[in-house]
C-alpha cells in the first residue's frame, strides 16, 4: 500500500494535549475532534490539511495521556500517517488499534521540511521524498500491525477473525 501527500513538520515530544486539547474531550465525535487537531501548536493544521498528508515529527511523538481521541483526531483530519523519530508507547498502540499507520524513520525525519511531497510504501519500508529526490528505508511494521491497519483497526480485526472462525 503506497501513501502519498505532503509533510506537516513538528518538533520533539509532541504531546497528546496539543494533538487534541483536553478541553475538547467531552466529545468523541471524530469530525469535531479533527477540527481542533494540533490547534495549540499549529492553528492552521485542521483547516489546511489535505487528505493523504503526513505529520512528520521528532522523538517521543504522542507522549502523555492515553486518550484515543489523539489518533482519532489525526485520522479524521485526513492525514494518512505519522512519521517520527520515535513514538510514546500508548500512542503507538492506540494508532494501530485505530488503523492509523505510523512509522519510525529517523533519517528521513531529519531531512524532511514542511511542505515536502512524500510517498511511503508500508510493506517495503521505504519513504521517497519527491521534493528532495531522496529515498530512505525504515523497518517495516510487523505483519500483525499491518493486518490491524488493513482491517481498519483492532475491532474490525477481531470481528473479521470471529467471522472467519
Amino acid at each position, binding site marked *: 500500500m503506497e501513501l502519498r501527500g505532503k509533510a506537516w513538520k513538528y518538533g520533539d*515530544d509532541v*504531546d497528546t*494535549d*496539543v494533538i487534541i*486539547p*483536553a*478541553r475538547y*474531550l*467531552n*466529545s*468523541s465525535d471524530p469530525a469535531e475532534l479533527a477540527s481542533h487537531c494540533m490547534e*495549540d*501548536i499549529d492553528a492552521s493544521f485542521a483547516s489546511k490539511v489535505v487528505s493523504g498528508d503526513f505529520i512528520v515529527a521528532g*522523538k*517521543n511523538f504522542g*507522549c*502523555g*495521556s*492515553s*486518550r*484515543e*481521541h489523539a*489518533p*482519532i483526531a489525526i485520522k479524521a483530519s485526513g492525514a494518512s500517517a505519522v512519521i517520527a523519530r*520515535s513514538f*510514546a*508507547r*500508548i500512542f503507538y*498502540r*492506540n494508532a494501530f*488499534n*485505530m488503523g492509523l499507520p505510523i512509522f519510525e524513520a529517523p533519517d528521513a525525519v531529519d531531512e524532511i521540511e514542511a511542505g515536502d511531497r512524500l510517498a511511503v510504501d508500508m510493506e517495503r519500508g521505504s519513504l521517497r521524498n519527491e521534493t528532495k529526490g531522496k529515498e530512505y528505508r525504515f523497518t517495516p511494521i510487523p505483519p*500483525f500491525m499491518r493486518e490491524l491497519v488493513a482491517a481498519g*483497526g*483492532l*475491532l474490525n480485526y*477481531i*470481528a473479521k477473525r470471529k467471522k472467519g472462525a
Partner: protein
Amino acid sequence: MGLTLTQKILARHAGRKGVAPGELILAKIDLALGNDVTSPIAIQAFRSLGATAVFDRERIALVADHFTPNKDIKSAEQVKLMREFAKELGIANYFEVGRMGIEHVLLPDEGLVVPGDLVIGADSHTCTYGALCAFSTGVGSTDLAAAMFSGEVWLKVPETLRIVLSGRPAKWVEGKDVILHIIGEIGVDGALYRAMEYAGDGIAHLSMAWRFTMANMAIEAGAKNGIFPFDAATKAYADGRAKRKYEVVTADPDARYAEEISVDLSALEPVVAFPHLPENTRPLSQVGNVPIDQVVVGSCTNGRIEDLRSAAAVIRGRKVHDGVRMLIFPATQEIYLQAMREGLMEAFVTAGAAFSTPTCGPCLGGHMGILAKGERAISTTNRNFVGRMGHPESEVYLSNPAVAAASAVLGRIGGPDELP
C-alpha cells in the same frame, strides 16, 4: 534466565514459566479500568463487537472522575452513557459522584488492586499501582473494549531499567522530588517502552503514598510501568484492604536488566519542573523569582492524605498570598472525610484556600481552576505541557505539596524554609 519483577508477573499471567524482552504475549488481566473520558469510546467499541456481556462483572472498574461533577451537558451525556452501561451489564465497580475518588487513588485504597496483579486501564497513569508490586499500564479505549470482552490483553514484554535508591531523604524532600529528579536525569523518553524497577535500601524510607507518586509518574519518563518490590510497608497497606487473595512476587537474583542507574536520596533537595516538560527540572534553590497566580494540591499524583498533611502543615496559621488562588483536591471521599477529621480542611479554608470535592479537574485543564492567558500555576499534578491547565499561553510548574503550599503563602515559587 532470571526474571525481573515485571517479567515474572507477565509470565504468570500468560501461563508461562518465563518471558523475554521483545516477545509479544497474550496475558490474562486481573482488572480493567475506564474513566468518563475513555469509557464512552470503549463502550461504543464494545457494542460494535456485538458483545452483550463482560468477561467478569467484578473485574471491571468504571470511575467518572475527569469532568465530574459534570462540568457541562456533553460531559453529563458521557457519564450517563457510562452509568447506563454499568447498570445494564451489572458492572460491580462503578463509582458515582459522592462515593467516588480519583481512579488511581481510589482503586488501591479500596483493595480492588492487589500485589502481583496485572491491571490495564484506559488512562495513562494506570502505572500508579506498581507501588503495590503489581504490573499495571495505560492503554487506549479500544484495548479496554477488547479486554472487557475477553479478559485478556496483548503486550510486548519490556526491557527493565533498574533504579537503585540509597540514603534517607532530607526534610521537605518527598516521593515527588525523587521521581522529578529521575525524569530530569533520564528525560521524558528516558524509559521509553521499558519497565522502571526500583531497588535498594533507600526504599525503606519511602512511604506507600510516596511510592504511589513515583510509580504514577513512570509514564512521564515514557515507561510502560514503574514497579516497587514488596516489603513490610506494602504488606501493611495491602492487608486489611485487599478484596482478593494476593501473591507476593520477587525479582530473581540473576534477573537481567537493560540498564541500571542509582540515586542517593540524601543528596536531593525539593525539585521543581519548569514549563513545558516534566524533564525541565531545577533544584528548588535554583528556581529564582517566579511569581504565581494559582496553586493546585491534588490529583492521582499527590492527592493522598499524606500529601494534604504535608501541605496543611506548611499552611496552618498562615494566609494564602493576596494575588494567589489556592485549590485543594482530596483524591477520594475517604480522604476528604479524613482531612475533615484531622482539621486539615479547616487549616486550608482558614488560610484562604478553596477545598473541593474529588475530581481530576484542573490537572488536565478540564474544569475547576482553568488558567487564563499569561497566568502561571504551581501544581502537585503530573504534567506541565503547553495548555495543560488552560490557555496555551499559560504555564504550569510541578512540585511536591509542601513546596506548593509554601509558594501559596509567598506568592512566588519557594520552599517552607523561606516562610517567616
